[in-house]
């Protein structure tokens, strides 16, 4: 593997200083499950790795009255092993349970998944559906970016040289809310999504009408997409096959997938709609307090 230096700063300020000083020739290291592979294959050639796992702000996982704070270096297992977080932010836990295998989930972080900015990243649609906001630190201070505006292209995002993703913040779920993430893969586990869909819904007290919804799509465009029209198609509507089918159609209209070995453009467009219907229905069931029939990997 390529030769590089390694630093593990204990403070956010020290990490930002290192990243800024080594502008461009430096990469933050969280779980390393993508980064170390990219170093080995020569896809990335940094001179310095800044291990961010010793920085307290990046290890925060805190559920409070204002919502959830998810530090950028928190590994996947901590999310789904926290029963309250897994219940209140179910789509996020669904994503974390199916990223790679268990060994990967021991290391891989949601923040790293977002910063790699892959079009098929399994956590990103859930972050968008749950209305996540990125908190970014940099030499010029802190700034916030909604998750749906973070990725700008395959492996590209809004982070400027010297900037570091610190955490993703989520609002507290509204009453009668539920969420879900599901992907289509031809295997049972350990694969990259052909299409992935995350959705959150809030219902009224009767459980028969949508108050609001957020739907996000993965693997159907150069970046994960917030399906705004599809989400708006549900707000204020009755929960019915018709309203959900209209949202699915709206989602199909915004996809811009590629043809590749995982699926053709037409196939991905079709599946995007199918998954929107299934994922919204599962989110509705969860919002009503029902158990959904869903086994990770199936």
């Amino acid at each position, binding site marked *: 593997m390529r*030769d590089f230096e390694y630093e593990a700063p204990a403070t956010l300020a020290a990490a930002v200083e290192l990243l800024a000083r080594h502008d461009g020739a430096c990469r933050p290291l969280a779980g390393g499950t993508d980064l170390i592979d990219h170093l080995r294959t020569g896809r990335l050639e940094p001179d310095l790795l800044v291990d961010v796992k010793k920085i307290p702000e990046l290890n925060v996982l805190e559920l409070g009255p204002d919502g959830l704070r998810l530090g950028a270096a928190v590994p996947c297992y901590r999310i789904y092993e926290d029963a309250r977080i897994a219940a209140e932010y179910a789509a996020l836990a669904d994503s974390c349970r199916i990223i790679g295998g*268990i*060994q*990967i989930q021991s290391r891989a972080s949601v923040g790293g998944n977002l910063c790699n900015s892959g079009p098929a990243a399994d956590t990103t649609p859930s972050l968008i559906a749950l209305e996540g906001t990125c908190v970014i630190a940099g030499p010029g201070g802190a700034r916030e970016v909604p998750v749906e505006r973070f990725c700008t292209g395959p492996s590209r995002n809004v982070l400027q040289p010297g900037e570091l993703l610190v955490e993703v913040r989520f609002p507290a779920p509204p009453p009668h809310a539920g969420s879900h993430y599901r992907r289509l893969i031809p295997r*049972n586990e*350990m694969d990259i999504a052909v299409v992935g869909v995350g959705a959150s819904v809030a219902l009224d007290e009767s459980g028969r009408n949508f108050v609001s919804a957020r739907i996000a799509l993965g693997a159907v465009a150069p970046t994960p997409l917030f399906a705004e029209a599809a989400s708006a198609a549900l707000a204020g509507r009755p929960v019915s096959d018709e309203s959900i089918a209209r949202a699915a159609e709206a989602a199909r209209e915004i996809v811009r997938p590629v043809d590749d070995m995982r699926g053709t453009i037409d196939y991905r467009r079709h599946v995007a709609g199918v998954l929107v219907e299934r994922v919204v229905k599962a989110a509705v069931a969860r919002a009503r307090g029902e158990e959904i029939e869903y086994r990770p990997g199936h």
Partner: protein
Amino acid sequence: MAKKRIVTATINGDSVEFLCEPRQTLLEVLRDVLDLTGTKEGCSNGNCGACTVVLDGRPVDSCLVLAVEADGSTVRTIEGVARQGRLDEVQQAFLEGAALQCGICTPGFIVQAEALLDRNPRPTEDEIRFYLAGNLCRCTGYDKIVRAVQTAAEARHAARA
């Protein structure tokens, strides 16, 4: 060349100190520096699980961990599974159930199965298959491996009943 680092870790119960370059993975150091060659290199990209070790209580692919990251941590490898020369229930079940052919994937499967049974002593077949999804075997197929884990779970349960 980057300066070598001194790393201290507890490996299979022993306090160990070693020198490594930042670019060396935990897998490389276990095998080439510490001579713990039971941990195997398969794909070296986190797909096959042949290099699985338990790091601070969590199973990880040691090919995707830098050895410097293991400073101050506790590592358990396949060499730490048998106690006082006696195979444990998982090893015994793999042996008796012939849950291997070439054997390259076996240390990873056994370490991963240990991690599963430590967390979930009576897993269902589905749970076993899901937990072992990050371990690939290219010889036998998985049925005998899954059955060996079930047998080991029963043996552990019987031993502790």
